[in-house]
């Protein structure tokens, strides 16, 4: 998305506008007011005496609130600006804009203020794919409110628009006859309520909005207050951490089935919804900081776990959903997202998250509560996850029309290939899926033995896991390359491209030690490691493209799990190096890591090149710095205690994480530099950092 677009949001309601605050959307343009995957405003244009306004500045107040400072006139020369205009807008159970006009002149002014409005009620999928509408539009003026609507069958979606000041309302907008005294001001509140049916009277009352709004403010304060604090000499780390906390707060949403609980949605603007994979990975990253996210994610996904066969939705008993949507195309079954189950990793990862959550929090109650769902997920791995019948988890879509071809995290069409670039057939058993399945069995066994009190089941799972590990290390190992194949194809042949997926194998623990050592050499070698991070696909492979979505770019999320994997096998310095590279890249994005950036060599471009159309903030990129903090400090729950075993990147003096929540209550973790000060300046500069000691001395001088 273009950087000059301004976005605010709360849950799955968000506004994207230009820097004046105006919305002029087309069917394929991603601006507008969106709620429940539907665009409720496609036009929102402010004029004064028929003139558009010019932006002076935009002031982002909170993730749900922003302020635009404007002056009338066209062009870039503000001659004699006697008026200024402030649009202060917020998302709080609808869209609200306080419009204020200030007269700086000694004379009174009379102005015609106009807000043009329209809505195309596009489904998010339509905005992405530019499709035609099938229902009918209507509009009416009722009790001084303008109501724009769209109807298809029994499904009605409406935008209710009104103002607190007296307005003339017509089918295309609101007009105000405004008189402003010398040095005086005029103000009105504009409201837009997205509605599925008649709005409840309650929701139209101002007290309701005030209540929702102050809840949100308190919620954000509480969220920040409850999160651990970071103290460090690495200034950017603190900035990145603060950015991540606020973005993660913004990305939370509360499903109707779990009132009062929230889980991370996948990203703004296209992915403000529940995703099995993204919600699980983000909850894992955030466990040491906000463990409640994991509990809500587990509950919400358990509520929607598959129980039957449905080829359109690719539902199977025990399967964890991939993506939930609420728009028109989902409602009328032109898309399968009600919910869609086309992911093979979400199901084993559900068990992984449940176990990791208990290890941190000691919440045995949730493990007992979700025992049937966890067992069903473990059952799914073998009963339905093994599409080839060869003992490996694989995928081949059942929905040939609108289903996903690649049902792993690298889900673009060309992400899975042989070394020479050839694309394999289906089913495809990608390697990381075997790792997740292995980990799910090991962790499931722990839960079965210690909490479900079913040692027999634990034995079975452990035997299966050991067998899977043995076979995997034999069948996936590429002898002439010294790494694990990306996948096995439908005939069991090794899809032999060298990819970042081998890092996930370390995280899952499925790699044998000697083989892990060879994988680490590749991960840190120049074909995979760009200097900023590990590329999705190694340089030199047939499909390598430094700006290809899953075939050469560097993904912060991917790297955070790779770093965790490196730690797991004892490669602490390597983990710290990956953390340093990605966190340093965040400097170039004002502390907000993008979904992906280009795989160019660090020395070649000096700065990380953002992937062109990525979505931001994206939950698992937001979560990456949190997981890097965990890996740099070597945080690991052991029994009732938290083990701290730090290894900081070279040149970093200290990192402290204070008040880490968990089964131990709250504890602090400290990490100090691992080398002498004399080596500091050189490496610090390499990382683009001011040496800590010098800067402090400079300040005091």
């Amino acid at each position, binding site marked *: 998305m273009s950087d000059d677009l301004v976005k605010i949001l709360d849950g799955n309601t968000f506004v994207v506008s230009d820097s004046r605050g105006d919305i002029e959307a087309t069917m394929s343009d991603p601006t507008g007011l969106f709620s429940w995957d539907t665009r409720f405003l496609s036009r929102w244009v402010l004029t004064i005496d028929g003139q558009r306004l010019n932006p002076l500045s935009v002031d982002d107040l909170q993730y749900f609130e922003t302020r635009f400072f404007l002056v009338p006139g066209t062009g870039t020369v503000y001659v004699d600006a006697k008026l200024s205009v402030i649009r202060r807008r917020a998302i709080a159970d609808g869209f609200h804009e306080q419009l204020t006009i200030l007269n700086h002149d000694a004379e009174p002014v009379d102005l015609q203020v106009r807000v043009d409005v329209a809505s195309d009620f596009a489904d998010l999928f339509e905005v992405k794919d530019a499709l035609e509408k099938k229902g009918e539009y209507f509009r009416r003026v009722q009790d001084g409110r303008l109501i724009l609507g769209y109807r298809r*069958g*029994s*499904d*009605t979606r409406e935008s209710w628009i009104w103002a607190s000041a007296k307005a003339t309302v017509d089918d295309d907008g609101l007009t105000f006859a405004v008189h402003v005294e010398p040095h005086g001001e005029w103000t009105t509140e504009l409201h837009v309520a997205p509605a*599925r*049916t008649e709005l409840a009277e309650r929701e139209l009352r101002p007290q309701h909005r005030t209540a929702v709004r102050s809840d949100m403010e308190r919620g954000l304060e509480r969220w920040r207050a409850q999160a651990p604090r970071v103290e460090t000499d690495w200034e950017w780390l603190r900035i990145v951490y603060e950015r991540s906390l606020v973005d993660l707060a913004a990305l939370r949403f509360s499903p*109707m*089935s*779990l009132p009062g609980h929230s889980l991370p949605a996948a990203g703004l603007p296209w992915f403000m919804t529940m995703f099995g994979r993204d919600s699980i990975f983000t909850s894992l990253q955030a466990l040491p900081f906000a463990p409640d996210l994991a509990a809500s994610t587990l509950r919400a996904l358990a*509520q*929607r*776990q598959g*129980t*039957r*066969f*449905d*080829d*359109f*939705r690719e*539902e199977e*008993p025990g399967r964890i959903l991939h993506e939930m949507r*609420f*728009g028109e195309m*989902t*409602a*009328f*079954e032109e898309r399968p997202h*009600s*919910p869609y189950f086309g992911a093979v990793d979400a199901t084993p990862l559900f068990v992984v998250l449940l176990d990791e959550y208990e290890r941190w929090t000691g919440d045995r109650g949730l493990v007992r*509560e979700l025992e*049937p769902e966890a*067992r069903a997920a*473990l*059952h799914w*791995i*073998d*009963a339905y996850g*093994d599409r080839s019948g060869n*003992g490996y988890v694989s995928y081949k879509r*059942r929905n040939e029309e609108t289903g996903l071809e690649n049902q792993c995290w690298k889900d673009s069409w060309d992400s899975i290939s042989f070394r020479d670039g050839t694309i394999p057939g289906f089913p495809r058993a990608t390697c990381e899926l075997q790792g997740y399945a292995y980990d799910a069995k090991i962790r499931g066994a722990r839960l079965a033995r210690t909490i479900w009190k079913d040692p027999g089941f634990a034995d*079975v799972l452990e035997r*299966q896991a050991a067998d899977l590990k043995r076979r995997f290390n034999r069948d996936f190992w590429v002898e002439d390359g010294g790494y694990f194949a990306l996948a096995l194809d439908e005939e069991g042949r090794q899809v032999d491209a060298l990819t970042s997926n081998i890092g996930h194998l370390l995280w899952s623990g499925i790699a044998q030690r000697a083989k892990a050592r060879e994988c680490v050499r590749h991960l840190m070698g120049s074909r995979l490691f760009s200097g900023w991070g590990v590329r999705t696909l190694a340089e030199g492979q047939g499909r390598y493209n430094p700006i290809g979505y899953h075939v050469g770019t560097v993904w912060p999320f991917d790297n955070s799990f790779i770093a965790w994997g490196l730690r797991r096998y004892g490669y602490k310095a390597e983990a710290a190096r990956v953390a340093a590279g990605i966190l340093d890249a965040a400097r170039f994005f004002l502390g907000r890591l993008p979904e992906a950036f280009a795989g160019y060599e660090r020395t070649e471009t000096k700065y990380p090149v953002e992937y062109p159309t990525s979505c931001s903030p994206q939950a698992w990129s937001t979560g990456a710095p949190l997981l890097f903090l965990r890996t740099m400090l070597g945080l690991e729950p052991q029994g009732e205690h938290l083990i701290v075993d730090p290894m900081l990147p070279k040149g970093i003096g200290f990192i402290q994480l204070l008040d880490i929540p968990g089964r131990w209550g709250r504890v602090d973790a400290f990490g100090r530099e691992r080398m002498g000060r004399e080596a500091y300046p050189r490496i610090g500069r390499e990382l683009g950092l001011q040496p800590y000691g010098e800067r402090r001395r400079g300040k005091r001088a």
Partner: protein
Amino acid sequence: MDEQTDTTREFFDGLAARRSEPLLHGVTGTIRFDLTTDEAVEHWLVHIRDGDVKVSRRKAKADCVVTADRDLFDRVVTGEVNTVAAVLRNELRIDGQAALPLAFQRLLPGPADSARDDATSDEGGAR
């Protein structure tokens, strides 16, 4: 009540006869289904207590009320109509605790053409 179609009644009778539903483990609450035909509104009250199910025809207060056309509901219980999509189309309306109908829909079958022979053949999870 003598409705021309019996699909819905058969579904609720079957539910009542089973008494306990493993898929509703941990779920407690009451759902009332208000199903409208041309002549009347038919009520089904489902009482769930940790997976134990009781069904009656009373129009009593419930934690959640599901409203739909009886014709549509006949197709819901056979798996022809997907519940979630029907809710999104506003053909099936939910008032009250949304978690209850979400749990309840686990009991509904999938589309007939998606059915699998191996559905029940490999219980236990062992390969």
